[in-house]
């Protein structure tokens, strides 16, 4: 039997075990996300999917839907908080979109566009994070990592290679690769690994294909991510 909860005042049907976000997407309703991926269990780190369920803030990607729940998502309050989370991610890394190959196809940037983030508001941290260009086919530009761990999960759970891991903690947390030298070329990473195709931002980049799609033909040039994502999933 299908059950229902309310999302911004409209009913959404769900089946047992579905999270708020899953049920919403299945019903054609978009809730912003960054670390969530339809093929992986929820991760819950970016918090872009926060909603208010019965008045309490929760992560829509992680919380199972319950009958009769009242969920608020597309409200000025929640969108304001989401914008602030994006601003935090922007000051944490070094995001110079004009010189980033991912620009136009980047989910972080697309979320910022849709949530009308015109500036990062806070003071920039300008961290020093060297790039790793050692691999013949792949470039790693750690300056843009948002720690969604999709590469970690894809490499571990699908590719079976454990190429990526996070080390240290707090604001010093960073990505490392599975080699004593710390260089990607000393791992068995391959350009056709799932992990090489899953980064939502511009960290894991394929060499020699940068800026191939002209401006105007990139993923988010004309349609906001809320529409693109729904088209992809239907």
């Amino acid at each position, binding site marked *: 039997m299908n059950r229902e909860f309310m999302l911004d005042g409209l009913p959404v049907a769900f089946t047992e075990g579905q999270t708020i976000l899953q049920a919403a997407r299945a019903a054609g309703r978009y809730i912003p996300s960054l670390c969530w991926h339809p093929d992986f269990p929820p991760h819950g780190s970016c918090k872009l999917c926060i909603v208010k369920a019965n008045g309490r803030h929760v992560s829509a990607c992680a919380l199972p839907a319950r009958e009769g729940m009242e969920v608020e998502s597309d409200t000025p309050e929640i969108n304001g908080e989401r914008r602030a989370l994006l601003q935090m991610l922007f000051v944490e890394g070094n995001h*110079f*979109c004009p010189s980033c190959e991912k620009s136009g196809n980047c989910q972080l940037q697309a979320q*910022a*566009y849709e949530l*009308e983030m*015109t500036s*990062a*508001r806070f*003071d920039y941290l*300008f961290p020093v994070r060297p790039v790793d260009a050692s691999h013949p086919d792949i470039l790693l530009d750690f300056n843009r990592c948002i720690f969604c761990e999709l590469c970690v999960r894809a490499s571990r759970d699908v590719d079976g290679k454990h190429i990526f891991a996070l080390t240290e903690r707090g604001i010093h947390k960073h990505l490392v690769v599975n080699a004593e030298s710390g260089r990607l070329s000393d791992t068995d990473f391959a350009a056709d690994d799932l992990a090489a195709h899953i980064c939502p931002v511009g960290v894991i980049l394929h060499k020699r294909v940068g800026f191939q799609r002209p401006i105007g033909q990139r993923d988010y040039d004309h349609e906001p991510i809320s529409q693109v994502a729904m088209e992809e999933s239907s």
Partner: protein
Amino acid sequence: MSAPEKTRVATASLAGCFGCHMSLLDIDEHLFELVEKVEFDRSPLTDIKHCGACEIGLIEGGVCNAENIHVLREFRQHCKILVAVGACAINGGLPAQRNYFKLDDCLRQVYQYRIGMTDAGIPDDPELPLLLERVHPIHEIVRVDYFLPGCPPSGEAIWSFLSDLLAGRTPRLPYSLMHFD
């Protein structure tokens, strides 16, 4: 009846490439509309050397040296509404890429150790503004009221933004004009 008073607008390019100013000139036929509504104060487009009382100040570029700080403070003091225009004003942009290096190393690399350098030495001419340790977006130095992203923002985006401001609406870019690149 006298003509309606024009809005005074000042503009400046700090550590930028003038791209945003070029974009401002890129609004084509709207330029005529614009000059009917606004009067330029200090700006690369005029010869005025110091900013007077203005409604709107448009700042292109980040803050990389002492001179930039003087200009930025002057603008903040005299403009009721201060706008960061373009990527460099908003996040430091390309010039801020030097923030990964110590200024010491940067200067020595450029003026002392560069291969083929004749007459090595860091310029000490008092006419030249001193460089800051790091390049900063302008909102780290003064309070900024609005941000107009883009590298540069398109003429259309600038026009949309300014028309909103001039008409007394809170500026809001439509999705198609929202760009960081």
